[in-house]
């Protein structure tokens, strides 16, 4: 009963959010909110997608930038070769990201988490090297992209991208929420706590990890795909920037990974703090804040913001009463 009511509330909320976003694109004329909002929405999508594997299953992916970059360059390559529309670019990026997730997962998810983590760092560098040597998409020099004309009902491309990214956020959150409430979520939580015990209780751990890795990879790549059109430019060092990995990880862990709302809160908080800090402090102190917050939360508030807000999660997490 309550589950059912929760669902209604959730979908109503999602609809209200999308309608609000859509009407904002129609009413607000100043373009800056869309530029800045796009970045924050992108971080929400990344953090939520990251936490499907990193939070629910406890496998730390340092390669968010690899999947992100793959999304960007899938879009670039496809657009340059065929002029495919944005929707197709995003779908293709999701497919490629999913395939990549499957490959890495198959290779390393049998082993302990640390091997997976290191393999994802390796992945980012190998793919970046590959893209740097790929002249068709501009190689190391990067590539400038001309946007196609904007589609109705939008009057500017950035507004459209803002809406598209909002849609991706809704998709990512609904998938995360579905997983969390389904037996997949319970299985992931079990294997995160104890892999052998989970196996012996009937949980197909490898399969679930692979599924999580594929979904997470697909969503990260999909969230990265519109970046090519947003920047109208792509270069390997920006597309594969390590800061995507640090941010996604920090936002998810700071927000808390036991519930899908955690990464959303973390991304909104850190994303807007970063936008604010970028305007006020222009030194490395800005980045330092992110690192210190990450370490403080990891050490002091293992369940993140939602753990602090909702004692239930603290209770669930706690070793001692």
């Amino acid at each position: 009963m309550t589950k059912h009511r929760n669902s209604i509330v959730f979908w109503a909320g999602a609809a209200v959010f999308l309608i609000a976003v859509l009407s904002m694109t129609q009413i607000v004329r100043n373009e800056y909110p869309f530029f800045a909002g796009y970045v924050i929405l992108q971080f929400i999508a990344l953090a939520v997608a990251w936490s499907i594997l990193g939070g629910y299953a406890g496998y730390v992916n340092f390669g968010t930038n690899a999947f992100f970059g793959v999304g960007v360059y899938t879009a670039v390559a496809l657009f340059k070769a065929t002029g495919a529309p944005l929707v197709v670019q995003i779908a293709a990026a999701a497919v490629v990201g999913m395939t990549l997730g499957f490959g890495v997962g198959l290779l390393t998810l049998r082993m302990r988490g640390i091997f997976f983590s290191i393999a994802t760092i390796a992945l980012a560098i190998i793919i970046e090297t590959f893209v740097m040597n790929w002249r068709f998409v501009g190689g190391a020099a990067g590539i400038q992209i001309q946007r196609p004309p904007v589609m109705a009902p939008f009057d500017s491309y950035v507004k459209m991208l803002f809406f598209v990214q909002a849609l991706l956020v809704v998709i990512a959150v609904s998938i995360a929420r579905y997983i969390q409430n389904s037996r997949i979520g319970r299985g992931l939580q079990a294997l995160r706590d104890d892999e052998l015990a989970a196996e012996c209780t009937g949980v197909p751990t490898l399969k679930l990890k692979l599924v999580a890795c594929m979904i997470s990879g697909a969503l990260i790549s999909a969230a990265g795909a519109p970046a090519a059109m947003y920047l109208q430019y792509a270069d390997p060092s920006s597309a594969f920037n390590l800061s995507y990995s640090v941010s996604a990880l920090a936002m998810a862990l700071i927000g808390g990974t036991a519930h899908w709302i955690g990464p959303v809160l973390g991304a909104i908080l850190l994303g807007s703090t970063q936008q604010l800090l970028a305007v006020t402090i222009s030194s490395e102190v800005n980045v330092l804040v992110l690192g210190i917050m990450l370490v403080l939360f990891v050490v002091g508030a293992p369940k993140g913001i939602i753990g602090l807000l909702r004692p239930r999660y603290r209770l669930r997490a706690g070793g001692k009463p």
Partner: protein
Amino acid sequence: MTPAAAPDAPLLQVGAITKTFGGFTALDNISVDIRKGERFGLIGPNGSGKTTLINCISGALRPQTGNVIFCGEDITQLPPHLRARRGIARSFQIPRPFKSMTVLENLMVGLDFAKVDSSLPEEDVAMSILTRMGLASKASAPTGTLSQVELRKMELARAMAVRPKLLISDEAMAGLSSSEVDEVLDLLISLGEEDITIIMIEHIMQAVMRFSERVMCLDAGKIIAIGAPAEVMGNKRVQEAYLGT
């Protein structure tokens, strides 16, 4: 799909399995059949290969040679979760609860993935198992708050949630007081009365004697005695093996 096992065929057949780690042979050509509904005791000194054997049965390890046949099906190469779905469940020597979950949720994992059809809602099934185990009052407690005996019971309850044909209990009484030992033992015996085959690894001899219909003793990866409890306890090599350590 699987060929129907003959009515009197053993539930579990361990066929000549050998398991080595590097140069160390943990199990040396072990064969044993376990009947349906049997209460089977497994004893032996530390490092004799008891846990390795049940790891090979439950799927945590795979033997180098030999096979494991369950209900007439060769499961030697199957991963643990598929064995669990076929009806093999276990508890662990050192309890391994899902720490971020409540007791009830721990059971729900097994119910979720064992794929047994039931007309009752899963939560009700879980509650009935907990009631059976005397843990009903702890259903919504986090596992971190449980006492040692409650943890042991929770592990057995979680194993029961898979609705096993074969339950393997790995030293479920270690570190418990004698009244608690009796409590857990009674539980196991009552489970055995419900047509569940049980393999019990135990160091506490009275418990083994009271529980088992048949006992097997391992030493250095070999079977040194198998038979009725009193018979095995009277065996010279068994006594030596125990005194020797």
